[in-house]
């Protein structure tokens, strides 16, 4: 766990969420050669203690 955290330290929540959305796929995965509007996503981070004093 600690190793995982160190690997991603400073990555930022936006990058974490972007990775999660790309892995999820669905409407968030944009195919090769697509130049239309990027999908706009409003995310709720359920584990709010990500930012707290857990």
């Amino acid at each position, binding site marked *: 766990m600690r190793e995982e955290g160190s690997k991603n330290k400073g990555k930022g929540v936006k990058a974490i969420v972007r990775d999660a959305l790309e892995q999820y796929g669905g409407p968030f995965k944009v195919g090769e050669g697509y130049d239309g509007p990027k999908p*706009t996503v409003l995310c709720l981070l359920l584990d709010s203690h990500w*930012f707290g004093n857990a």
Partner: protein
Amino acid sequence: MHLVPGPNNIKITFIPPSQISQARFTTRITLHYLPLLQNPPLHLAIVLARDSDGQFEGPPDRPNGLDEAVKKLRTAGYLWQMYTAEQMFRNFPGAPGHGGSARRSFRLEEEWGLDTLSLQESDARRTTAKIHIVRSELTVAGNYDCRGSPFDDRYAGGGE
């Protein structure tokens, strides 16, 4: 009021207090709802850590599971949509095409499913906002340890 695509016949009845009048006052309007599906939607998603128990912080006597989070985010999405429309109208006065704005807003991604917007009904199915449940590959501890970026520093001291 839940609109369906096409004409919606709406009847509004005012029943005054009996000491004022015994009569009922009724008016009818027809609203034509045309979903603008050509506009890209705003997607709603809940992001969970890999080992998340699917609960959020809340009062101890209130439900705080994932189902409840979905309901709350769906309701919040529609409230944001209405708020945006109202603010566009208020902040850009005048007629559309002459510097003003109508009640313009974004479109939420919707799907046919169980609607949770109203407490006055249950098991109602209609077109409603879709909420994606996204699992991060990181654990809660892993995500927590990712702090350090300028974005995250705003939350340092956290919990508020």
